[in-house]
């Protein structure tokens, strides 16, 4: 059986405002008998009009009233527990302090504050303008003081350059490349000085592993 039988009567009344659908006045008889004050004025009038006209309905109302009386007279199921013991047990279990909802406490401010602080620091770091002078620039303060300042390499400037040597890629430090240029002889003087030509680097491809190791050792010595 469904929880709500199909309505049998044709006369219908509007449901109380805010509730879904009209209901059959027949369906309000038990509610009328048990709690007339909980019906709307319209519902009450319709039920009372039906009761006045229909003796069978009055019998139904009387039988309903009698049944509800019998139900209310039923003794409670089971025995009553010791209420005082239950109160004590509840008091012991919940403890003496009143819990506060999280938004009424202050503890939630700690993680929120920490997050806000971290966010602020991040924004400051990202928005700070680059102050490190780029390659070739001099420190203005030291320049004004007449102190020569070596060009520095910015954090994003590459410090090495790739070279293709003997079929494999080699990273050569830029400073080492600078050393090659320092006091570089003019073209044509290399053979006289016993140096390798710098205007045409095709000879680099012919270098063997031993030559490269020797060159790196020489560069290291030159740096120190």
């Amino acid at each position: 059986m469904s929880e709500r039988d199909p309505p049998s009567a044709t006369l219908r009344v509007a449901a109380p405002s805010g509730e879904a659908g009209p209901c059959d006045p027949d369906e309000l008889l038990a509610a009328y008998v048990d709690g007339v004050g909980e019906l709307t004025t319209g519902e009450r009038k319709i039920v009372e009009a039906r009761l006045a006209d229909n003796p069978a309905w009055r019998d139904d109302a009387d039988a309903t009233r009698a049944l509800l009386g019998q139900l209310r007279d039923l003794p409670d199921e089971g025995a009553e527990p010791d209420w005082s013991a239950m109160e004590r047990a509840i008091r012991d279990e919940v403890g003496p302090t009143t819990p506060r909802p999280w938004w009424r406490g202050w503890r939630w401010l700690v993680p929120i504050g920490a997050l806000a602080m971290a966010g602020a620091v991040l924004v400051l770091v990202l928005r700070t303008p680059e102050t490190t002078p780029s390659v070739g620039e001099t420190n203005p303060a030291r320049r004004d003081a007449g102190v020569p300042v070596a060009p520095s390499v910015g954090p994003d400037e590459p410090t090495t350059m790739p070279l293709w040597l003997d079929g494999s890629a080699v990273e050569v430090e830029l400073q080492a490349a600078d050393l090659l240029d320092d006091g570089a002889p003019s073209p044509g003087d290399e053979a006289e000085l016993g140096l390798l030509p710098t205007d045409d680097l095709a000879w680099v491809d012919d270098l063997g592993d031993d030559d490269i190791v020797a060159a790196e050792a020489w560069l290291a010595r030159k740096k120190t």
Partner: protein
Amino acid sequence: MVSLATNLSLQEIVLTAVDPDRELAERFQQGERGAFDQIVKRHQKGVYRIIRRYVRSDADAADVSQQVFVRAFKGLGTFRGAASVRSWLYRIGINCALSWIRDHKREQPAELDEDALSEPHASPGRIADGEQSVRLRAAIAKLPPKQKMVLELRVFDDLSFKEVSELADCTENTAKVNFHYAVKRLRELLGDEA
């Protein structure tokens, strides 16, 4: 909008004036621990009665009732007052009872025997209730769940249809209609002698 807000605040004032539970809940929310003890005193019998209908042992029903108030203690701080404190507590009670039943399915004694309708003396333990009581309880046990719930909340717990609707999760009108069909069905089950 302003009138709506005014109406709501007036409604709250009226509700607070007529519902002492609401005042107790507010006092508890302001930190008065003793207000909760008064709520326990006022509603422990009702909560126990509801749970006892689901849990078929006095001791277990007492344990579950205790759990209900422990949960209520933890949640009362966030109680917003959309429903009455009583129906809120009863809702927790029903949830806890159903949860207990799920956890102890094998331990629960069987429901009332359907034969009790025709054989009222079938169960010696229930003789004390009287023949008519046994018949009535057996008939109630045969109602569809929603009708049974609505009838019991209305008749045994003396709740208004509004409170019944809050607990049965339906409209007030549906609660009235379910109540009607529950009574009608009971009369059919019991015959005109009821």
